[in-house]
């Protein structure tokens, strides 16, 4: 199955931010999250055991299909790291 469109980086950033907010059990607007925000810090609490849920949710939000191994072997520090990888994955899935 291939994706029918490639979302732009802004759309990817918005989807990723919504998902990391939910994963961190927060109730804040996406505008509160910068790309330099640490994934594990004062505000966000993202952990790798939630990656399956995050990936399917991001796919839902962006209407794309991302590779199953998109996150495998990678290390993420900030929200921006996650956005970069998802944007690349969405592009590769075209």
């Amino acid at each position, binding site marked *: 199955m291939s994706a029918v469109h490639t979302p732009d980086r802004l759309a990817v950033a918005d989807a990723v931010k919504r998902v990391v907010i939910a994963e961190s059990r927060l109730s804040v607007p996406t505008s*509160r999250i910068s790309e330099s925000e640490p994934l594990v810090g004062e505000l966000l609490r993202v952990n790798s055991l939630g990656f399956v849920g995050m990936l399917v949710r991001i796919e839902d939000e962006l209407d794309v299909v991302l590779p199953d191994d998109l996150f495998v072997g990678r290390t993420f520090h900030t929200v921006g790291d996650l956005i970069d990888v998802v944007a690349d994955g969405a592009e590769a899935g075209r």
Partner: protein
Amino acid sequence: MVTAPPAGTPAATGSDARPGPASSPDALLTAAREAFAAAPPIGADAYHRYARELAARLTADWPALTRANRRDIERAERAGMPPVLVDRLRLTDDHLPRLTALADRAGHELAALTAADTGRPAGAWGTLRRVPRPLGVVLMVYEARPTVTVDGALLPVLAGNAVLLRGGKEMADTDAALAATAHAALRAAGLPTGLVTVLHDPRRALLRALLQRPDAIDVLIPRGSPSLIAHCRDAGRIPLIASGGGVNHLYVHASADLPLAATVTLDSKLPEPAGCTSVELVLADRSVATAYTAELLRQAERRGARFTVRLDPSVAPPAGGDPDRIAPLAEHDIGREFLDPVVGVLAVDGPGQAIAHIRRHGSGHTEGVLATDPDVAAGFTRAVDAAAVIVNGSLRLHDGPKLGLGTELAIATGRLHVRGPVTLGSLMTSGWVVEANGELRG
């Protein structure tokens, strides 16, 4: 830093549902439905035998199960998974007596749940009996926790259901070993092994395909991260038994016994800071907010507990309190789960304001009130709509066994079928048997 888990490895043991033709959605669902159709009626002796066999085989297989678990642990550690997450994957010797006790308890509960209904008169012509029935084929989707695989292989099956278990790929070897144990127990009990299917195929496409099959899956039970539950809720049309997050509050009324309120707060947080029944925000009447916070910090200090209060900046901090234990409550702390030994304290002007806050920010999971004024407590329980509302007690009382409701699979926050502890009885439905003696409708 967040390091992704390693790719799923083929399971080392077990007999089902690896990637391949046999793990196509059609094949999996056909096998599960055939097993469900072939299974004996709910309450049959075979289910009681299964509970006993599973307990016995978990004990006998424990060395093999822990060896399989060590392989998963080593793989996770090699991949750089943080120790706190590795611990969630770990099967320890403390788990075994808990799991065998669970099987034993559930077996006893089954007898009570399936005891014959003596019936009630239907008019002057017949008798009506309510009889328990299984839900059907259940799909459980969860993240990597080995004990959930045992819960899932036990409780839904005792209720007469067939179950598909889709756990995290980080647990591939452990889950395969547990599947072998469950299958051996099913065989020994005389039940179809297809009643328990552990899905070893980690591809999300399989999960998506299963979620599109309301024709073959009767109930979906997701447990895990908010994203996973949201996806399961939104992706398909399968009825769902799900727990939302626990953005839980305690309201401390001016009439509250403040030492009790502090003790209850600490018991609602410290033993399981990231648990779904953990308290996140205390709404304290302004007139007692400082005194309550002082008592809270005093008790935490006495326990030597790692504990922080995020205090409403409009509340005067208690004199002489350890400043390292107090931080300012920020706007983003409202409506969040801290997942740590941290509690927010927000001043409110009376029960009306507390209830309005809970209605706006609560997740309908577990809410509590501390008050000696019975009218305040009664008003709170009438106005706050949550799966459980606790009066003058710990939020962690919201637990099936502790409440005497029975073993539980999860705590549900949905509004239909079950709300609160998802017990063995919640994994069944019921039907009517009508002894009509020739009566016609006319």
